[in-house]
């Protein structure tokens, strides 16, 4: 199968349209199963009580927030190297979802921290680097929207995404080191040593639900982006005619 066939907006637009309902449906089904496990099937944690249940949202969101940045940087890099329009559109389409996931991870983490640690926020390495990741997303989004010419916006934001992607691990390790040196908060991050298998199952189902949701959201957004950018193209007019 020739994968490059779908690298043009013209062929990708209908394909994405066909894929969106499937991913949306699996996100809904998996989300329902995962939330059922999270709220009814999983037992109450003997240390953290009911508050631990927020990790069923928190962990998938945190995972997606980092993964999406890398995927976004990958597509941005491809777009910059091969000058493919669709790759840049894909990178743009992923960014808002990534920022949303980062925000959800921070927000739910704060909700979890309040009953568990007794504080809304600690300057822990993971929290701090997640916050900086959020800032990187904001920088990417604002640079993209500040430039009117779409081709220039594509390339400039691609350079920024790549610089950010190189920096994400450096920031993570520097913040981690900073945190271990300061020892300001004595909050221990170690959760219950072994997670009950039903909890693990619930978390995995939720992770897949988040994957499906993020893919569906990105595909829907890339379709809008294609419509916006290709509004003068002949193939779109033909599509409307049908």
């Amino acid at each position, binding site marked *: 199968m020739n994968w490059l066939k779908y690298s043009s907006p013209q062929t990708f637009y209908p394909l994405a349209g066909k894929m969106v309902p499937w991913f949306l449906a699996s996100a809904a089904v998996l989300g329902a199963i995962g939330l059922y496990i999270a709220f009814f099937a999983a037992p109450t944690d003997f240390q953290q009580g009911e508050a631990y249940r927020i990790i069923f949202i928190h962990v998938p969101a945190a995972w997606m927030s980092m993964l999406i940045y890398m995927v976004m940087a990958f597509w941005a890099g491809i777009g910059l190297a091969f000058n493919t329009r669709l790759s840049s559109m894909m990178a743009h389409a992923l960014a808002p979802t990534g920022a949303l996931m980062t925000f959800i991870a921070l927000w739910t983490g704060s909700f979890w921290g309040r009953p568990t640690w007794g504080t809304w926020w600690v300057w822990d390495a993971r929290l701090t680097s997640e916050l*900086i990741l959020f*800032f*990187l997303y*904001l*920088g990417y989004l*604002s*640079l993209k929207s*500040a*430039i*009117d010419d779409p*081709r*220039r916006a594509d*390339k*400039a934001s691609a*350079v*920024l995404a*790549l*610089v*950010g992607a*190189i*920096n994400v691990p*450096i*920031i993570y390790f*520097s*913040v981690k*080191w*900073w945190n271990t*040196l300061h020892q300001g908060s004595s909050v221990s991050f170690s959760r219950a040593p072994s997670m009950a298998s039903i909890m693990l199952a619930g978390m995995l189902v939720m992770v897949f639900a988040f994957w499906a949701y993020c893919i569906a959201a990105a595909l829907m957004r890339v379709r809008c982006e294609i419509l916006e950018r290709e509004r003068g193209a002949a193939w779109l007019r033909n599509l409307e005619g049908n």
Partner: protein
Amino acid sequence: MAGWTGTAGGAVMARDLLVAARRRSDVLTTFFFFVIVVSLFPLGVGPEPDTLREIAPGVVWVAALLASMLSLARMFGGDHADGALEQLVLAPQPLTLLVLSKIVAHWLTTGLPLVIVAPLLGLQFDLPGEALRTLVLTLLLGTPALSLIGAVGAALTLGVRGGGALTSLLVLPLYVPVLVFGAGAVTASAGGMETGGHFSLLIAMSLATLVFAPWAVAVALKISLE
């Protein structure tokens, strides 16, 4: 050939330094911004020497980040406005080298003054002698990295709406590692701890940005001139 490109880079640098010397107020504004921001903290936090000693590394370093960020618009802005930047991009010499000369000139006019005045500000915060020396050394090693990283942001936001605020949004998160190790070394030194690790990482970061940043700036400049 190598000598010729060296001359071109040197010429760009000499020109930028001359421009800075003719417009002294630009350089002095950044310098005094740094001094004023640092001096405001005791007024806000209170004059307790113990507190001041504790916050001094962070305050001086954060002020250095802000000062070097404020001056970024000047790095390519003037050349972009009068068309000199296009001539640089069209020049037969490698753009990365010319860009590096511009960054060095920028550091000499904004980074170096901060390094020189830092011990004076450290004294205001009652930093002990050893920590003062560390502060100067970390700024000396770290501010070039700030100019290099900042140049990427400056090049990306060239001629873009809301340039200044946008640059800060792009650049400040990327400054985090430099801040962590720079201020961390001073804190460690004030606490009588070993600072070798901090210095190694700070130097590593400056060298890594020295290799990658000019290249990224050259790409960004070409994009902005398309």
